[in-house]
């Protein structure tokens, strides 16, 4: 096997992984603050990819330009879902908590199937076909831009959580709900804000993916699953862990596609995940 091929696919893995980071961060943030697993996370991403597609189709916006709109729309949806649905079941038993976001995922996904059909769509813009060529290693320009945006947003989220008042409130609620409430933090509002931000990040990922990937209603579940693997690999409840876990997932996919058939790259991710769980169930950064 040629060295350049190996380097190429490892770099591809890092590029893919940095987009997964946005999805995994959201999943981890919602879990950390509300202790809910958002099964609909990948479907919010799919929804946003369709928003980007229609903005391109009707308005002529490039997916990169539609990122703020996608973030805003998904933020609103996340906020509303948390406010009117998830806040009701936050104290409920495991069954209701598990099935509510899961049912939400089904409703979102299949609404798209029913209204738009199962056809695969894609955006044909010049970015999708451009590539950067360095010493025989070709990388898609769209993916490099996506990585740059994903990395800067990850840093922005970190600074937001560390430096701002709302960020401090979110961290306080995730550490101890009751204590945060006693200190005067409006916990219900904090839940809504953090879910809004998390779903908004999935929206950004959706817009980024729209510029180089196929768009159809079924893309959600695989992103939910991969983000979940990333969160568990990194350690449940750790922001840095989710980012590192997502990069690992991207790398594992590349290695799987390189060593076996590309179609079973997710099987490799899952096998590595099982192996990892048996050795270290708390994840890399878990406590």
């Amino acid at each position, binding site marked *: 096997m040629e060295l350049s091929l190996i380097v190429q696919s490892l770099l591809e893995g890092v590029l893919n992984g940095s987009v997964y980071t946005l999805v995994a961060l959201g999943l981890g943030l919602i879990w950390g603050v509300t202790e*809910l*697993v958002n*099964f609909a996370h990948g479907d919010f991403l799919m929804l946003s990819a369709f928003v980007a597609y229609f903005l391109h189709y009707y308005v002529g916006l490039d997916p990169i330009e539609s990122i703020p709109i996608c973030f805003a729309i998904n933020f609103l949806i996340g906020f509303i879902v948390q406010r009117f649905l998830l806040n*009701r*079941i936050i104290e*409920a*038993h*495991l*069954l*209701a*908590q*598990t*099935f*509510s976001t*899961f*049912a*939400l*995922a*089904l*409703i979102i*996904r*299949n*609404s798209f*199937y*029913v209204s738009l*059909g*199962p056809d695969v769509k894609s955006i044909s813009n010049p970015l999708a076909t451009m590539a950067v060529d360095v010493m025989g290693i070709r990388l898609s320009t769209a993916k490099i831009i996506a990585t740059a945006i994903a990395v800067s947003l990850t840093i922005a989220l970190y600074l937001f959580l560390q430096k701002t008042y709302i960020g401090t409130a979110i961290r306080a609620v995730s550490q101890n709900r009751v204590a945060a409430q006693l200190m005067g933090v409006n916990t219900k509002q904090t839940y809504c804000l953090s879910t809004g931000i998390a779903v908004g990040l999935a929206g950004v990922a959706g817009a980024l993916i729209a510029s180089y990937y196929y768009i159809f*209603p079924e893309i959600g*579940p*695989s992103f*939910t*699953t991969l983000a*979940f*693997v990333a969160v*568990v690999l990194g350690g*449940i409840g750790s922001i840095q862990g989710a980012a590192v876990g997502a990069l690992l997932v991207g790398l594992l996919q590349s290695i799987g596609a390189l060593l076996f*058939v590309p*179609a*079973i790259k*997710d*099987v490799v991710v*899952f*096998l590595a*995940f*099982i*192996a990892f*769980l*048996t050795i270290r*169930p708390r994840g890399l950064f878990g406590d």
Partner: protein
Amino acid sequence: MVGLRSLDLKSLRRSIDFYIAVICFGFLVVSPLIYNNFFYINALHTASVLMLAGVAWVIMGGYTGLISFGHAAFFGLGAYTLALTYNWGVLPWLGLVLGGCVAALFAAAVSYPLLRLKGRWFSLATLAMAEALKLYFNNWDFVGGSRGIELFRKEYGLEWIYFASPIYYNYVAYAVLIASLIVLNMIVKSRFGYYTQAIRESEETAMAVGINTFRYKQLAMVVSGFFTGIAGALYTIRFRFIDPFAVMDFAQSLQIIVISVAGGIFTLVGPIIGALIITPIAEYVRAVLGGTYGAKFFGIHMLIYGVILLALVLYSPGGLHDVILKLKEGRKRE
């Protein structure tokens, strides 16, 4: 830890469950004789396969508190085992049991890593497990890959479970279902059933009184996997053609979950009520509005499943079984 249900209705439930089961089975056996419609008989067959898988799911989801989104893996393993052994010349009656055994072995193997996760993370991991298995089967030439397997032996008779009239398949399915229910009822009423319920209510307390929680959770997975495997094999023997997307797709897990939650997951008759009511409706909606790829409202039955599921968890987490119990209790008090 909040308990999942109050236990004061227990003695009432024990007697009422038996009558519910008798009424449901009476309906399953008699109604196809009166309304002899090919589509309806098929819908009842699908319902009875889902009942068996649902009852198996309830052993994990309801009795042990391990909510699985990956039962399609067990279902598919049972289906594939029967298809392969049938073509090799093994009698399908043995194939049914073998299908269950393969699924149970798989459950035992995956339980080691999966049970390291708790609650919702366990659920997500089962989902990932089933998806990975489906992708693997889709690329595995030994089992036909994405082309699937067809049962090629064409010998009519009960021995090979191959009939000219579809209604006989229904009676084979009912017989297997009743036999499995009797065994499962014994299992649930044994020490095992009480231990798993103790684990569901509070794992720490169960551990404190000396229950080996890992061992009993693993046993619940094995029992559940075994009977789901049999359900998958029953599906194969009727439709005689399978591919990974027909038997291992997430939609399969979903159907099992929805009928169980709709009927009530804390009792063995829950999935029976749920499947009897929901499956014919869903099949009808799918046939009339949904159809296959390219049809107008592709996915509408899944959308309906989602809406039913959300409404149930918000307003009646105990399912239809709880509604029946409340009606009965209300009448007694008057």
